[in-house]
């Protein structure tokens, strides 16, 4: 079991290196996308700067709390799609167009190869932004920074799970590209706004259908409390999202129909 896990980590590192080299063949496009995403995230933080300048506290949430929310989201999103770029927006169309064949021919499980097969340039901008904004605005001590790095993995797990689940809709409803985009965007939008804004039935939705709670609310609560209980909750929630999504993917894969396409990966 441990050896198998180690093998998969090696595989992930090899894929990451190859994907990054492939992207760097178009250096200008890669850096411009990464920098643009960095600036895009910065614009949102600037929005909150303006907001909190006028309204310093929002139901107990201060500027640094919202920045932590943004930092954890951006870093998690970045890590998820730097390493597993095929869990990003293309998955739904890949399935709908019958382009999974190439991945089905690989030895071992389909899903890890499929997910690791691409890196998203803009995600690198997100990842760096997440760490930088946390260091600059929150100025954490070593304990908080360590916790942030651990939580980066739980958030990334939740994002990968969300991506697989959203993309797998194509197994069931045909081309679910628009639907999966809307779902993903809704989760990201809720995840980057303070949970104090929502209550009642909405809170239930945010930990089920729209799992923003596992993407950012629980990780930020963990950063605030630094308690092991919250960390376990955040990890369990993200693992549950990922586990369910893997189940949905393999269940849907039984319904997959090949597009009889010959494609090359390069």
């Amino acid at each position, binding site marked *: 079991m441990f050896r198998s896990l180690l093998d998969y980590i090696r595989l992930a590192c090899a894929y990451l290196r190859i994907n990054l080299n492939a992207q760097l063949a*178009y250096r*200008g*496009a890669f850096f*411009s*996308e990464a*920098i*643009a*995403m960095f*600036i*895009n995230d910065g*614009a*949102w933080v*600037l*929005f909150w700067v*303006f*907001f909190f*300048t*006028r*309204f310093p*506290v*929002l*139901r107990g949430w201060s500027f640094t709390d919202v920045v932590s929310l943004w930092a954890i989201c951006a870093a998690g999103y970045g890590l998820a799609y730097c390493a597993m770029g095929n869990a990003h927006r293309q998955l739904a169309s890949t399935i709908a167009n019958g382009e999974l064949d190439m991945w089905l021919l690989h030895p071992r499980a389909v899903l890890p190869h499929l997910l690791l097969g691409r890196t998203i340039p803009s995600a690198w901008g997100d990842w760096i932004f997440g760490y930088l904004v946390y260091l600059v605005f929150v100025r954490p001590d070593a304990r908080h920074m360590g916790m942030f790095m651990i939580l980066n993995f739980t958030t990334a797990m939740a994002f990968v799970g969300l991506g697989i689940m959203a993309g797998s809709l194509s197994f069931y409803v045909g081309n679910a590209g*628009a*639907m999966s985009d*809307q779902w993903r*965007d*809704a989760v990201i*939008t*809720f995840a980057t*706004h303070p949970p*104090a*804004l*929502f209550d009642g039935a909405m809170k239930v939705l945010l930990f089920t259908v729209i799992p923003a709670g596992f993407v950012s609310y629980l990780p930020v609560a963990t950063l605030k409390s630094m308690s092991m209980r919250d960390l376990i909750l955040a990890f369990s929630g993200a693992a549950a999202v990922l586990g369910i999504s893997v189940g949905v993917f393999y269940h849907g894969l039984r319904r997959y129909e090949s597009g009889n396409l010959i494609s090359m990966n390069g």
Partner: protein
Amino acid sequence: MRSAARYGWIGYTAARSNMAYRGEVLFRSSFLAVILYIFMRLWTVVFAESKDSRIAGLSLPQMLWYLVITEAVFLSSPRIWAEVDQDVRTGRLAVQLIRPLSYVAEHLSRAMGERIVRFAINLLIGSIVALVLVGPIPMSISGLAMFAVVLPVAFVLDFFGMFLVGLSAFWLESAAGVALIYMRCVMLFGGMFLPLEIYPDALQPALHVLPFASMLSAPGRMFVDPSFALLKESLMRQGVAVVGYAGLVFLVQLVAFRRLFTNGG
């Protein structure tokens, strides 16, 4: 006259084409409902914690209707930059230029056709959400007429901005990054989520001078709090911005097209 009819027909065809996919456009617009819900909650909390019944001169219902308009305008923007970017990178531009049509005017008429349909659908969805969440706001025929004057100019301005972004493909490998930055500038400095009056005082003069305010804040304000003074001020700023943007498009196009080579094939 014949030329105007030709471009009008292009716009009409683009609108008809978008109507054919109204189901998809409607589905994609559902994201607007999510944004409006979140910001309605945000402003409800802000108003509840504030002693004032008005913020930036707007009541809570006006604030949400302002968001409906700014969001509907922003989200109805067609991806003109991507079309120009593709034309440049694939060399399709060379074919476009030999047609008996102005490249800019053809894109403008198509963008306006597409945008009218998208804006109408966004407005429909936004209005339903706003009516459910905060109810109606007082409106008048004269106010709506003034809004109808400011809105198309805002569309034209945004078109020029997007077109300029697309032309950047002459110098960059991809215009996608520039487009993202441009859209965030419109969102942030145009007053999409926050009326400009909420921004720090030191920034306000600059924000009002930038063309982004004429794209979002001007129609938003005109819808919720119309007045002749605001109309005059908005049209003046929009006029200056349109002339400036159009001049810039002309100049950039002039320089860019010199870099165009056709190799046959």
